[in-house]
């Protein structure tokens, strides 16, 4: 494994961790507050939305990493995956 791939793995892992911990903190905060304040459910929902957005963020980050490495084949593959997920999002809104 070359040095660029090692660095790319670190950024990708960091993205996933950031998403995981943000979602965890928001969900727990929302749950803890729900017997105290009326807007607690919004915090909880925000946590779940962060959870839903993290996989998309991880595709974008991977795509950018591939572009930086000039690995256009896999940048295109990432873009394809992103396109399908965005399509699902659009269809989901209309559902």
């Amino acid at each position, binding site marked *: 494994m070359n040095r660029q791939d090692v660095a790319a793995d670190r950024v990708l*892992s960091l993205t*996933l961790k950031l998403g995981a911990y943000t*979602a965890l903190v928001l969900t727990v905060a929302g*749950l803890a507050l729900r017997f105290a304040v009326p807007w607690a459910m919004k915090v909880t929902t925000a946590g779940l939305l962060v959870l839903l957005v993290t996989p998309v963020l991880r595709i974008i980050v991977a795509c950018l990493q591939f572009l930086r490495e000039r690995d256009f084949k896999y940048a295109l593959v990432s873009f394809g995956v992103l396109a*399908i997920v965005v399509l*699902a999002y659009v269809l989901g809104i209309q559902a």
Partner: protein
Amino acid sequence: MTLAAMLLLILIGFLAGGFGALAGVGGGIIITPLLAIYFGLPMHQAIGVTLLCVIATSTATSSMYVERHVTDVRLGMTLELATTVGALIAALVAHQVNRRTLALLFACFLLYSAGSMLRKAWDSRNKKREEMIPDYTPQNYPAGLGASLIAGGFSGLLGIGGGPIKVPVMLLFMKVPLRVAAATSNFMIGVTAGTSAYIYWGRGDIRVDIAAPLVAGVFAGSLLGARISPKIRAFYILMLLVCIAGWLAAQMIYKLLTGGFQ
């Protein structure tokens, strides 16, 4: 929801996420039947909630596998082209499938998963932990993409990760080492489940009040589990999961035979 129910859901999430990460299998497969049998959730809602739990497990554990360079990001991204298409189509179709059919399909998949966990447990009896990853080049992409399409389909339909379908194909047909195959499958699950989760969310099949405590528990459990998993042997945890999966499958079949899941 009462405080007791909320704490119970957090605990279920914690155990499913923790055991799942320790044994290297998704814990989601246990959550759906628990919600459908004991919490009386309609199958579509149980599946929608489980999708979120599956994303949580995948995100938490793959952050660590990627960091340890076990995940093949390029292979995962390529196969995701197929899993997401399968997941999207299946999530759109799932709404037309009636609850009893979904429950039957789920029970069958539960038994299949129990079988594959049993074999995994058998294999893990006397294997050395954390061996080096040999050099490899993935072979036979058509087989991998085909299996990924099917796995994605099952994910969108049943809210599962589909690891038991992808991992053997990556191992046997694509000649990818087992640890890489497992980590890569796990990596793909977040994006795959995310794709169908958008459809379920849009339809209103994801109940925030039930999903939130489960997701919080799953996150905590799988972050902890993935951290200590290299240090333990998975045999007993896998056997425990086999028993739970078998029990839940039996419960689901019993409920189906007595006219449940309407």
